[in-house]
């Protein structure tokens, strides 16, 4: 362990300073304001906006993208590429100082482009996808609200602003999951997403309070400049709290269970929120807080481990699922695992993780939209055992999906190869036995990814048709849906090389991200790692091709221990239920019992009692004053006893 601890003990962080925003960049707040205003218009105008509302939604995101691009170009010419704009002092009393301000720097810039760019395409797609839904206008309202919150999250210049966006995207996600479908499963999924996210949010909130208590500020520049003065224990606690927040939002172990269930929402939601943008907020948080994470080696080890565990877990479960959106969801969990692995490795790997995040944003969004297109043509069927031979009927969907399939499994020269392979290689460079551990995990993950993605692809588009009886002739989706597919596919094909060569340099201007990567000799030669990762990819894909090219049974088959476990999400749900849910329910029951459940239970029948006359109600309620008084007396005795105990020195 000593070796691990000495390994990444990062160099002390230098002072961080941001330049004030001037000129065009002074209007960077427009990025948040435009989608927000559009959302307000859509939600407030009501039915009057039904006919044109969706185009307003699309236009707002398009405008934000164009603006984002201008700011981006503006930023390139600047000396200090970290520009902040303080809108107003949000809270200023005594020691409390929170700025309502924005920070536009290279990291924020790439996120802005991803969110608005991919967001624009998904909005465009949704115009057609939701065409027959009477709530389309409201959908676009929430969707714009989400984009505004997400932009606030990445543009804030302090942790409180980040928390605003964080809560905002959580809220929008919860609303979009459970508002949309009245199905009980959607409601449960919404609840699960909500509770798990709250656990993470609580971690983040407490983390921010710790920052405040220890450093007296939440501004990024002041925090990063001051983090070197904190004790190692404080940094560790702080980092773990932030990590808890990150795992909650990004669906990482141990808070991963909500993300696949969140696929109950409409497909564009899955594509935008639960694949391309919101779920990467955790990666953003860690990358943004890199001076904190780099300051403690144990912390980095924890992040790497979370990433490694999650990426394997996601692959294993993804390989056993039959619901097309769930497979993609577990794949998302697994790919974000790669990003966590990257940000945990620290140094130059931060940039690699961001590159993978951008590439993933493209191909995963495209795959979700492709899945939506398939469902669109197949009467909303989601079971991949009921697809097959669709390549013939949905040419565009098939071709674009194929590009992304090749991209995600990492076939050169598509984007996944340029973004994932360096992470695997860096995992082998830790300089001790953990290189083998994490490198091996990343390599194994690559093979498994190839296996389950190929399975998904082959079962959906090739092999014999196994459709349900009600489908005679699947149809390709309309233009408005296929054009975004094509554009995203082009991004997946071409962007990889571009991203991997330009983004790391670009990101060095962001505080901490340009840190020197502590050089260690990789335990394997770089060419060997590349060869190995290509080999396992081809092996995994070939195996899946062999197994599934002739289709598969349409009913669940008996399976071995591992597959059964994977089908049941590796028993994590059962674990959560036994360890958290049951005691929670028990606690509630106990409290309710202590709090005179009798009264509440009876008063709950109020609606009935109103009809039946309040006399009955009175009878039910009489006599409880004495139990209230007893409760007060007991409490009083306890309080007095506690005071006396304090006085006697027992509790001091």
């Amino acid at each position, binding site marked *: 362990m000593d070796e691990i601890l000495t390994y990444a003990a990062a160099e002390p962080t230098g002072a961080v300073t941001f330049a004030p925003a001037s000129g065009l960049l002074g209007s960077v707040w427009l990025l948040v304001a435009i989608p927000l205003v559009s959302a307000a218009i859509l939600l407030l105008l*009501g039915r009057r906006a039904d006919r044109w509302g969706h185009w307003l939604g699309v236009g707002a995101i398009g405008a934000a993208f164009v603006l984002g691009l201008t700011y981006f170009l503006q930023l390139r010419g600047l000396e200090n590429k970290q520009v902040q704009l303080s809108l107003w002092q*949000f*809270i*200023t*009393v*005594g*020691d*409390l100082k*929170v700025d309502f301000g924005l920070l536009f720097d290279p990291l924020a810039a790439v996120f802005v482009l991803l969110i608005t760019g991919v967001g624009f395409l998904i909005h465009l797609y949704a115009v057609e996808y939701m065409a027959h839904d009477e709530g389309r206008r409201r959908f676009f309202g929430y969707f714009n609200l989400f984009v505004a919150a997400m932009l606030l999250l990445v543009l804030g210049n302090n942790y*409180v602003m980040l*928390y*605003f966006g964080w*809560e*905002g995207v959580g809220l929008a996600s*919860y*609303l979009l999951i*459970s*508002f949309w479908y*009245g199905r009980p499963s959607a409601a449960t999924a919404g609840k699960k997403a*909500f*509770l798990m996210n*709250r656990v993470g*949010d*609580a971690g983040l909130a*407490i983390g921010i*309070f*710790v920052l405040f*208590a220890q450093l007296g500020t939440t501004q990024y520049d002041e925090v990063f400049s001051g983090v070197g003065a904190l004790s190692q224990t404080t940094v560790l606690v702080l980092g773990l709290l932030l990590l808890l927040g990150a795992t909650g939002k990004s669906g990482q172990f141990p808070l991963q269970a909500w993300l696949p269930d969140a696929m109950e929402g409409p497909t564009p939601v899955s594509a935008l929120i639960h694949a391309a943008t919101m779920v990467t907020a955790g990666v953003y948080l860690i990358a943004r807080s890199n001076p904190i994470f780099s300051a403690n080696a144990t912390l980095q080890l924890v992040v790497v481990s979370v990433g490694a565990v999650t990426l394997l877990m996601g692959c294993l479960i993804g390989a056993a699922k039959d619901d097309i959106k769930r497979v993609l969801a577990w794949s998302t969990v697994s790919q974000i695992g790669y990003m966590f692995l990257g940000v945990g490795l620290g140094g130059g790997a931060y940039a690699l993780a961001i590159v993978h995040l951008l590439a993933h944003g493209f191909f995963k969004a495209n795959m979700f939209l492709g899945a939506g297109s398939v469902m669109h043509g197949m009467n909303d069927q989601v079971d991949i055992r009921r697809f097959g031979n669709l390549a013939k009927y949905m040419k565009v969907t098939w071709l674009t999906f194929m590009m992304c399939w090749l991209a995600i499994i990492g076939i050169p020269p598509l984007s996944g190869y340029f973004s994932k392979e360096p992470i695997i290689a860096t995992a082998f460079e830790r300089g001790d036995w953990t290189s083998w551990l994490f490198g091996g995990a990343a390599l194994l993950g690559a093979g498994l990814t190839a296996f389950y993605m190929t399975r998904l692809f082959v079962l959906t588009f090739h092999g014999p048709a196994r459709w349900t009886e009600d489908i005679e002739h699947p149809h390709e989706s309309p233009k408005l849906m296929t054009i975004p597919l094509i554009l995203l596919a082009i991004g997946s094909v071409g962007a990889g090389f571009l991203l991997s060569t330009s983004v790391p340099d670009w990101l060095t201007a962001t505080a901490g991200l340009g840190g020197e990567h502590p050089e260690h000799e990789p335990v394997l030669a770089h060419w060997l790692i590349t060869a190995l990762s290509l080999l396992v990819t081809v092996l995994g894909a070939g195996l899946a091709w062999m197994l599934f090219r002739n289709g598969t049974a349409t009913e669940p088959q008996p399976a071995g221990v591992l597959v059964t476990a994977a089908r049941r999400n590796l028993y994590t749900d059962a674990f959560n239920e036994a360890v958290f849910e049951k005691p929670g329910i028990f606690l*509630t029951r106990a*409290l*309710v019992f202590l*709090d005179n459940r009798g*009264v*509440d239970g009876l*008063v*709950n029948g*109020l*609606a009935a009692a109103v009809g039946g006359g309040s*006399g009955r*109600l*009175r009878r039910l*309620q*009489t006599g*409880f*004053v004495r139990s*209230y*008084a007893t*409760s*007060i007396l*007991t*409490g*009083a005795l306890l*309080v*007095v006893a*506690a*005071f*006396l105990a*304090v*006085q006697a020195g027992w*509790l001091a």
Partner: protein
Amino acid sequence: MTELKLPSIDYAALAPILIMLGAALVGVLVEAFVPRRLRNPVQLLLALVAVLAALTMVILNADDRLITAGHAIAVDGPTLFLQGAILILAAMALLLIGERAVERGGAFVAHAAVTAESVDDRRQAAGAGGTTEVYPLTTFAIGGMLIFVAANDLLTMFISLEVFSLPLYLLCALARRRRLLSQEAALKYFMLGAYASAFFLFGVALVYGFTSGIPNRAAGVDFATVHAAVAESSSSQVLLFAGMALLAIGLLFKAAAAPFHVWTPDVYQGAPTPVTGFMAACTKVAAFGALLRVFHVAFSGAAWDFTPVLGAVAVLTMLIGAVLAVTQTDIKRLLAYSSIANAGYLLVGVLAPSKDGLSGTMFYLVAYGFSVIAAFAVVTLVRDADGEATHLSRWAGLGRRSPFFAAIFTFILLAFAGIPLTSGFTSKFAIFAPALDANQAWLVIAGVLTSMVLAFPYLRVVVMMWLSEPGDATPTVAVPGALTSAALVIGVLATLVLGVAPAPLLDLANGAAEFVR
């Protein structure tokens, strides 16, 4: 025989209190001499004018830092801030109480003793106004609260406690609909309130006994003497701690902290909704004003000793409020448990013994008061033929039927849930940050965790309003009269403004955050 020496009295400093009590007395005369049909507007106007006049005096007195009326009343920053808060919130509550357009005759019964379906009852249903005694009663209660937050000795505090409690007991009993429920709630509140007052009085006696041990100083219950006694009294410490505990119990009862919260759900549910709003906002301010003064001024020397006990009470309160709110199916009970949980958060602020802690707590009280009155204002509007439809299942689909009010209520619930850019977030921030500075991390952690739990029942209501299809049982939202609209607008705007730009009020609170002793 020694000459009787009268204490000097600064009438200007006492003016807000005197105005309210005077207006209450005039109100009683109005009942006697003004014709019935004019009484309602006259009374409402009188009460509102009195509140505004008192508020003006508070503002004029803004720089006063003095103790007057023979050490009985302290007029200092927190007093003036909290008096201002009580008066503003009370004005909003008066608007709700005065509303006659939503329900013909208003929310109050014509005669407290009138039986349901009797002639009097029908007459009211046919349009005759409800009792107008509610105005003097409310005005008395406001006057009592103003004394309560200014009281500088324990006896004045006790008397003012009764002055504002007794009218509240009566007000609770005056609901026109579900009258028996309302009267029963009032009786419960009265009996338990009397019970809690007894604890308080016992506490006063014990503390008095404790102060007799100070060398070279007469015994007394004014806070300066108690403070001196904590430092140097030679009496048994048991007197101090038992006395402090009993005092705390009396005040925690009013503040609705666990385990002294048991009355809250029943009373909040049974009382006429405008009165519930009044209690939830103003009583909370008054109770916490007194708690702040007692623990920051009188017992500050024993902070080391009371913090763990009150901290445990705070955690229990937050936990019970949050967890039980999850199981509620009645909107008024839900808001009652939410009010209990908020009492827990406020206690966290009380236990942060710094200027920031004090100002944060005062800010929280104001922010919460605005939101909670607005929430109850919406509750008065959602009704069917039998009056307010408070069962949560009835609220399903409200968003489709009345999107505007559902949106307003959603906003208020988001504020309660502490979502950023509402006052709920800034006020929690203003309380938790000083508590962390005071090394009360455990309270902050408990606070953050329970507020995460508490967000769930709120958002469940939001989802219910918007997700479900409206059914036959979905009530309509009455068109609010001008008075309710005004209260609603003030509450919602304040919730928004305090969430987006809280700095001015925080500055004000911070400037006021210093007690005189």
